């Protein structure tokens, strides 16, 4: 299908975008890379009266590292993240996750700001921001707000971003040299919508998880920082501890039933991902049970 008619304006700085958002609110949509917005418009799932194209705002581009923080401008494209030595060094989880976002022709346009603002519950980057304890920086004419990723995602395609606000950047504490990560997802085809996925970050003390963050996606209304991780930290992981964690995970997720996968299948995939993640991070293949927990 084709998008319905709309007005279009291209802005060259953030303030101009904010002034338009202040006037038009929910009637306006921000066009960043357009790789989520355009499909929803072509399918007539959304029909904004005004498109505000922010693609030419140079201050929203770029990746920088300063005083222990990795700062990523909202217009940074997926392909930029994928090829960035700074991201590979300071947030290697992101480099790995981005390779799973759609396909090269979409990664050439799609942006991290657009991806997070869209808040697709099956998307990779929202789960990564939870795991990496990222801060989402947004601006309106009233000033700037910094929102912790755990508070940013509020539901299916819903976030704490107000209609008058523009997502301007993401800040991530740089990865410590001791931290390790894991990323895996199950999709019908590579780059397709995840039926279940897991982004994880951890630090080890010997053979024990000192810290473990598990970010699941595709398994509910929004990405989930799983409390099941609490079963796995502080002492060497046993098969029983992992089984307890998988049971706890099962209790805290509420996956959808749709044409991609049944809820039961997503539950199974989520438990298996958890097992694989723990076994891989600890280098303990004995822990990865292939049978249903």
């Amino acid at each position: 299908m084709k998008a319905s008619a709309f007005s279009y304006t291209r802005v060259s700085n953030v303030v101009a975008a904010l002034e338009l958002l202040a006037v038009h609110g929910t009637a306006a949509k921000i066009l960043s890379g357009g790789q989520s917005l355009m499909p929803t418009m072509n399918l007539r799932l959304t029909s904004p009266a005004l498109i505000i194209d922010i693609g030419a705002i140079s201050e929203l581009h770029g990746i920088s590292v300063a005083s222990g923080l990795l700062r990523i401008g909202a217009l940074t494209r997926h392909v930029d993240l994928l090829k960035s030595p700074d991201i590979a060094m300071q947030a290697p989880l992101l480099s790995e996750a981005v390779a799973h976002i759609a396909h090269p022709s979409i990664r050439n346009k799609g942006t991290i700001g657009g991806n997070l603002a869209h808040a697709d519950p099956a998307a990779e980057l929202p789960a990564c921001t939870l795991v990496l304890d990222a801060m989402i920086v947004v601006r309106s004419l009233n000033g700037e707000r910094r929102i912790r990723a755990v508070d940013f995602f509020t539901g299916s395609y819903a976030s704490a971003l107000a209609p008058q606000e523009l997502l301007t950047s993401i800040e991530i504490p740089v990865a410590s040299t001791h931290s390790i990560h894991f990323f895996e997802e199950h999709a019908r085809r590579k780059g397709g919508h995840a039926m279940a996925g897991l982004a994880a970050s951890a630090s080890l003390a010997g053979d024990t998880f000192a810290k473990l963050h598990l970010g699941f996606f595709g398994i509910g209304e929004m990405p989930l920082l799983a409390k099941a991780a609490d079963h796995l930290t502080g002492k060497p992981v046993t098969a029983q501890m992992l089984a307890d964690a998988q049971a706890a995970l099962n209790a805290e997720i509420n996956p959808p039933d749709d044409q991609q996968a049944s809820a039961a299948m997503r539950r199974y995939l989520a438990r298996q991902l958890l097992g694989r993640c723990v076994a891989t991070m600890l280098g303990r293949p004995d822990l990865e049970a292939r049978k249903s927990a």
Partner: protein
Amino acid sequence: MTAPTPISLTVNGERIEAQVLPRLNLADFLREHLGLTGTHIGCEHGYCGACTIRVNGDIVRACLMLAVQMEAASVETIEGLSDSGEIADLQAAFKDRNALQCGYCTPGMLIAAQDLLLQNATPSREDIREHLSGNYCRCTGYHAIVDAVEATARGRAGLQP
């Protein structure tokens, strides 16, 4: 403005001035306004890859871009890549290996494959499948397409295809 907006761009090296409605997507602009019907439209929401073209050197989905965004852009379509001879060997390999049947996906497939070969002169079969993962083909089962891309890479490297 919902009214026609002027844009100025180059398409396959030729300067184009046009008036476009904001809602017009780039694939429709190329097909309906410029008569460049090699850019195919399959799904119109970014899944199938039939509308793959190059904008400023990067491959993109033409159905997920607006013509009005193309101010000052350099657009290359299958017509341009074909006429310049840039992908003549790749096209010949597709023909030799029966890497197309109905041909609907072929323009997008060729442009995506050429993008891979420009970035990676010696891709593995897995690399080829990965790079073409966003392009659906409902005829060939992909095997012959991977063969053709692999043969082209070998040919360009001066090896036996």
